[in-house]
């Protein structure tokens, strides 16, 4: 104690704050306390290194044992199940999930039955409502491995989860739905909730596979206007030929420049000659981006039509349009 006092006094003198030596005492005390805490953590970390190594060894052994049994069980479903102590159940669960990657058909059904029989499915569903983010995420990832839509009943809360990864996986899983009502709910959620553009694109693509008419109906719903650009892009990317009349109508009627431009690009990707009239008229548009989209789409559908209009476009006031005309002349004609 005496040394502590002397030390802090000397330091205070050097810094010229002899009258405030209690400040130095406080700083030194905090420093010593921090050192003590660090030393405690030091010991704690040291101990956990060994427990981690031990746990890894047990996990590896048990995982191997359960995988062997699961393979036997797939070949012979009558084979007796091994004893699974409560503290080893997670190893069995992980072994089942690892096999999900490499199995399909009847084998996958067998694995799912096991997963349910041991109560993992129910437990995962319960954990979706956990207050701890990583417990929710882990449960969701495990359930998503089965490539089955879990339904709005279980996932509606997770659509608004604070963790962006959970929101992404939830949207992804829900897009597998086969129910029209759930698909509608999902489309509404896409409009209402903040979700990134690429995920939106993929979800609409998935919905298009199972609910084509429902996606096309979006063009008639005012609520879905914010989704029009992404739907148009998906229709173009997937070459949905039956959507051509709808896209043409939309391109003629919409006041949104973005939607009109994407509609023109989409028509080019689909490649239906019914769009030629619209595309040729769009070449006279005032917006350079629309002109470029029409130009590109015209070549995609029929390069000959492009050749007929090329002279007028070569004198276009926009340098970008002129540059692209020159480029297309080299590569397309």
């Amino acid at each position, binding site marked *: 104690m005496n040394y502590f006092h002397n*030390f802090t006094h*000397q*330091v205070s003198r*050097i*810094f010229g704050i002899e009258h405030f030596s209690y400040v130095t005492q406080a700083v030194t005390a905090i*420093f010593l306390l*921090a*050192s003590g805490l*660090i030393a405690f*953590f*030091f010991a704690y*970390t*040291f101990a*956990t*290194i060994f427990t*981690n*190594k031990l746990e890894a060894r047990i996990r590896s052994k048990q995982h191997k044992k359960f995988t062997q049994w699961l393979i036997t069980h797939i070949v012979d479903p009558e084979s007796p199940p091994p004893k699974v102590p409560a503290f080893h159940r997670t190893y069995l669960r992980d072994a089942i*999930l690892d096999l999900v*990657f490499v199995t399909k058909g009847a084998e996958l059904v067998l694995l799912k039955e096991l997963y349910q029989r041991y109560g993992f499915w129910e437990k995962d569903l319960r954990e979706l409502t956990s207050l701890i983010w*990583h417990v929710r*995420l*882990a449960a969701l*990832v495990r359930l*998503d*491995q089965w*490539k089955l839509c879990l339904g709005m009943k279980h996932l509606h809360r997770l659509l608004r989860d604070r963790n*962006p*990864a959970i929101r*992404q*996986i939830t949207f*992804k899983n829900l897009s597998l739905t086969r129910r029209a009502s759930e698909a509608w709910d999902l489309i509404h959620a896409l409009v209402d909730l903040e979700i*990134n*553009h*690429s*995920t939106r694109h*993929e979800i609409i*693509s998935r919905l298009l596979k199972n609910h084509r008419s429902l996606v096309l109906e979006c063009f008639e719903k005012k609520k879905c206007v914010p989704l029009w650009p992404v739907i148009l892009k998906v229709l173009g990317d997937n070459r949905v030929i039956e959507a051509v009349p709808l896209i043409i109508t939309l391109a003629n009627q919409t006041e949104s420049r973005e939607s009109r431009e994407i509609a023109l690009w989409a028509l080019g990707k689909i490649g239906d000659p019914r769009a030629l009239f619209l595309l040729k008229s769009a070449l006279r548009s005032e917006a350079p981006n629309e002109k470029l989209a029409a130009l590109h789409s015209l070549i995609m559908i029929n390069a000959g039509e492009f050749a007929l209009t090329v002279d007028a476009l070569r004198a276009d006031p926009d340098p970008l349009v002129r540059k692209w005309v020159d480029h297309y002349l080299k590569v397309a004609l």
Partner: protein
Amino acid sequence: MKEFLVPLIQAVFVVSIGYYTFANTIYLVLLFFAYRDIRRSKLQTPLMIQELRSTPPAFAPAISIIAPAYNEALTVVASVKSFLLLNYPVFEVVVVNDGSKDRTLEELTAHFKLVEEHTFQDSRLTHARVRGIYRSEIHPNVIVVDKENGGKADAINAGLAVSKYPLFCAVDSDSVLEEDALLRIAVPFFEDPEKTVAAGGTIRLLNGSKVVHGRVTRPSLAREPLVLMQNVEYIRAFLCGRVGWNAFNATLVISGAFGLFKKEAVLGAGAYNKNSIGEDMELVVRLHRYYTETKKEPYRIVFIPDPVCWTEVPFELGSLSRQRVRWQRGLADTLLSNRDLLSWRYRALGLVAVPYFYLVELWGPLFEIGNWIAILLAYAFGILNQELLLLFFLIGIVYGLFMTLMAVLIEEKYFRKQSSLSEFCLVFLFGFLETFGFRQLTSFWRIKGLWLQLTKQQTVWGEMKRKGSS
């Protein structure tokens, strides 16, 4: 003489103690945030990898790996093969032969059956003349760009011009990647594709490890003391200096050996600057500027704590000295030409990270060496103040040592790359030893680099000797 020296030495001590208190407290705060990030990452990353593995390719962000190669005929084929073995749903490998004088292109042509192809080149990127673009007949996702020599930054720009995916990963062709390196580094882009602009990964030392078919099969440590010291230094630098800054979105350095970037963001920021000495740091600084000044959109540049890339480090003093001088010159070049980053407009970056980089990373060696000179002088003249020396020992050495050892422990606890207990003890021991001698030596080289940059002297980099891995 003594009357003049006593106040001067005391002043040096007081300034140095202030510097060490600031530096080590920042390290402590960064270590706390790094620890929080690592814990979160250890919980989330394996789950996200599981999800990315099972996800359809459309949901996983597609990646172009860009590997510049200069005179690497001996290793380039093995490197490309190891890239092809990476575990990721969709990716392409773009190798840029940067005007090699050896048989780099011939080796690639022979092994991958390259055929010339007329591919679209993005005209927004400027680079040295491209002589030809080739695609592999065996692996259609391998593209080789043959161009005239222009340096690493120029080669990456050329690779970027022919790459087709929205994300690109710049790698050194002599680096060894973990099998799931792309999966790990893509996690931030999967979680938040709109805001994530760039992600860096932690780099580990390859010296002494066993590499089979481009994969580290047995991580081990070389026995050279210089390598062991660098190992400790890397652990501390990546945990405190890189991962910790994630909490403030103030990452300033993503290593050129392995980093994943959003292509549109890099093009918007002006791509790689071939005239910069530290092109990797310079690019990250420009990305911060681009999003703060031009786009004015929320963004994040992250550093993932998982070790994903292995690289060989110098094992002799000459190479190490040249490397450190070059690093310090790159740092000085970037920081001194971006002085206006010290502004509230950049929030935590301008108010905390940049001042830290100026004081600790740029000018820090002057304080460190100055303090040791003051100790020697005070000892020589018999005017050494024991209390002040003790205070310096507590704050400068013990406090710093704790940071180092904590970083080593966190590394061992969460990443377990040291394969045996004896190696762990060795790393722990060198955590102590590194503080005495090696740190002072690197400070000296950093001062040299700073001086060369301030006086604009030209230097020859020379080539690093390599042992290769068994």
